[in-house]
């Protein structure tokens, strides 16, 4: 035994004597993780969160979260001598007087954008592969919670510098609060410590941004990861992969090196963006005052869809009994997003209700083998994308020589018409892909080689696919639709019959599939040749 091994043994012994950790560590250091690029999307979020904590801590050392007015006397000449809040002035100081400060600010902001992109692509992967199914519904809900909090946290973060653009964002947020029926103006006055903008808001959201929300994030992320750990990762179907096993690499050393390495990759890419690409150049926006505005005032992208919905809203307000309800703010700003996020969070339960499938799933679906789910996802994506585009309609209009009025009408109509179209197209596409899979298994791969048969006919040679591939393409289950009783023996609709009828219908739509190829069919085809 070398000296080093002896020391390691002693340390391990010391810790185990006091915690009994050896047994747990022994089991978990060899824990198996399946390898697939799409399983790293969640890690992007985790790592950018760590980057955000580190770079954010750096920024707090100089940032002054105060709305007290100061006269700027710093490095940046075009703002010298202007009145501005201490928050804005200190952000300028971080950018121009602290070496590496601008780099850190940009890394922090890019990391925030990557964090949100990571959450969305991770969510899409989980959704389209059905990874949210039993037993992982809790983790799906936690994920939706993290997405929602991420949007809020990002908004608060870019609001802190108190520049003209972010101040405009806060103004809009204030209008949303103020629009709440009954309590709106009270809540707005409480949040802002008086009339907008006041002097209280930035210090308050600072506490929420750097303490309250990061704390909640940390707790939720920990639970999210513990559940992944405990429930073991899902895996894609393939030879040797079943619902009862996990095929992959052990944590120690392979996955540790890969995952650890990927952290540095994410940090490196974020630093690269921070080095070469300007983000949130607050010195150009100028300090906030409610009397100024810039053309093309947009939020960051993860709020863009919300802004797009608000822009396309019809101008409806109700005035009755001396009170006003702003539907043009409430519907796109609160009600619609509320419905969207509730449906998103409840989706695992909705799907299992519709299919009647209450079993555990550890093997992922290929998106084509769940056409209804995939089409619903495409529908939701289309809705969000149209809204997002409308959130940047002025920039798009000037770039592509369109008019904002055309863009707005396109979005107003498109947001209603395009999602159903996306649903239909996606569903058909899925079924077409299923058919292609079936053909591939039964007839093999087209080789492009033509052969002339003795009687003169040309045929293309098909090469049979491997047993592994054939299994991968046919291992999925095709569930039969529900047949819940709608009528009793006498032909009379029974209690709950209508509910059953709806479930049956949804379940039938969900079960639509091209029958997968079977060994029997293959043999039969061989017999013909």
């Amino acid at each position, binding site marked *: 035994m070398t000296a080093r091994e002896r020391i390691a043994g002693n340390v391990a012994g010391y810790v185990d004597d006091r915690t009994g950790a050896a047994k747990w560590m022994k089991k978990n250091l060899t824990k198996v993780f399946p390898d697939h690029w799409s399983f790293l999307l969640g890690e992007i979020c985790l790592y950018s969160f760590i980057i955000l904590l580190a770079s954010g801590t750096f920024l707090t050392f100089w940032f002054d979260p105060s709305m007290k007015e100061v006269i700027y006397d710093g490095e940046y*000449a075009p703002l010298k001598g202007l009145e501005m809040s201490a928050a804005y002035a200190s952000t300028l100081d971080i950018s*121009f007087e602290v070496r590496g400060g601008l780099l850190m600010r940009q890394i922090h902001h890019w990391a925030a954008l990557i964090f949100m*992109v990571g959450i969305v692509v991770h969510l899409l992967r989980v959704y389209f592969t059905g990874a949210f199914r039993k037993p992982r519904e809790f983790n799906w809900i936690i994920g939706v919670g993290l997405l929602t909090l991420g949007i809020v946290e990002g908004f608060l973060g870019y609001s802190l510098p108190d520049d003209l653009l972010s101040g405009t964002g806060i103004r809009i947020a204030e209008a949303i609060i103020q629009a709440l029926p009954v309590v709106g103006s009270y809540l707005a006055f409480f949040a802002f410590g008086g009339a907008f903008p006041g002097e209280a808001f930035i210090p308050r959201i600072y506490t929420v941004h750097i303490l309250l929300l990061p704390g909640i994030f940390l707790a939720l992320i920990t639970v999210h990861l513990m559940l992944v750990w405990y429930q073991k990762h899902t895996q894609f179907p393939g030879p040797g992969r079943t619902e009862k096993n996990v095929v992959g690499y052990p944590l120690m050393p392979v996955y540790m090196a890969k995952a650890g390495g990927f952290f540095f990759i994410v940090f490196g890419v974020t630093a690269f963006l921070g080095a070469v690409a*300007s*983000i949130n*150049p607050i010195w150009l926006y100028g300090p906030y005052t409610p009397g100024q505005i810039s053309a*093309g005032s947009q939020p960051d*992208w993860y709020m*863009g869809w919300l802004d797009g919905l608000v822009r396309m809203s019809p101008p409806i307000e109700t005035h009755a009994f001396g009170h006003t309800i702003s539907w043009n703010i409430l519907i796109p700003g609160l009600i619609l997003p509320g419905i969207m996020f509730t449906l998103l969070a409840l989706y695992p339960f909705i799907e299992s209700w519709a299919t009647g499938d209450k079993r555990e799933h550890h093997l992922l679906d290929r998106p084509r083998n769940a056409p209804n789910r995939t089409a619903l996802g495409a529908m939701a994506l289309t809705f969000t994308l149209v809204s997002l585009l409308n959130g940047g309609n002025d920039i798009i209009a000037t770039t592509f020589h369109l*008019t904002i009025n055309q863009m707005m009408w396109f979005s107003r109509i498109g947001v209603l018409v395009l999602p159903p179209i996306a649903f239909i197209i996606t569903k058909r596409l899925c079924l077409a892909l299923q058919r292609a899979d079936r053909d591939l298994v039964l007839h093999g791969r087209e080789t492009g080689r033509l052969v002339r048969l003795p009687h003169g006919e040309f045929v293309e040679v098909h090469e049979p696919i491997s047993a592994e591939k054939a299994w991968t393409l046919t291992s999925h289950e095709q569930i039969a639709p529900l047949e819940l009783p709608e009528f009793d023996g006498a032909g009379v609709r029974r209690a709950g019959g209508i509910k059953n009828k709806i479930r049956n219908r949804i379940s039938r739509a969900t079960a639509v599939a091209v029958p997968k190829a079977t060994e029997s069919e293959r043999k039969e085809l061989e017999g013909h040749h």
Partner: protein
Amino acid sequence: MEGNTVKRLSRLRRHRAAGPMLLVFALLTIGTTFQVAGAVTTSPSTVADRSAAIAEGKQLFLKGCSSCHGLNAEGGAIAPSLIGVGAASVDFQVGTGRMPMADMSQQAMRKDPVYTPAEVNALANYVASLAPGPEVPSEESLNYERDGSVAEGGELFRTNCAMCHNFAAQGGALTQGKYAPTLMGVEPKHIYEALITGPQSMPVFSDKTLTPEEKLSIIKWIKAAEAEPQLGGVALGRVGPVTEGLLVWTLGIGLLIGVAVWLAMKAR
């Protein structure tokens, strides 16, 4: 950490690599000087010069403008009257190439001017002779470096201009396909003329509500914004978060997914 941005800019001139950028700047400078010089040499100093210019301007007007603006500049079905718009308006519209309009699109675009500076001057003199209107600012009155204040100009710009032209003077969308153009590379004289004449969709900024000094401050700020190097890396068009979002959804997540694919690929 000594020095301010002005110092930075002076250092930048010394350090600027003599690359293509320098060449473009040189060409631009030469071009501008030439144009200004041309304007100076042809500016009529005597009454006789002026009436000659008016006569020449009238000829040019009849040939190039009267088909839309009418034989006596009284306006027509598709073009406004030019009586009383003043020399500044003509100098702006023709000098920036907006007039004559190439096609009847939503609004006249900035393009290479059709007329020489001398011809522009003649046209301006002719239109100014029809009725009094804003005059072309003299070169002496355009000394924005001396008479303007950049910080004040920024504040004025954000209050009066940024709502259409964007926070960094990059331009923005108006209704029905109209747009506020970018102010990058626009001559100070033309910015000044636009402020006092209100071309096309743009309103007029009167000298009493936005004094000549304040106008010069705005010009000074625009020029500073134009010359400002990229302090934090590629500026992404200076249009705000839309391009930032685009970059993170393409290059950002693209690089990361690329590495993830490599990571999960089996080594041979």
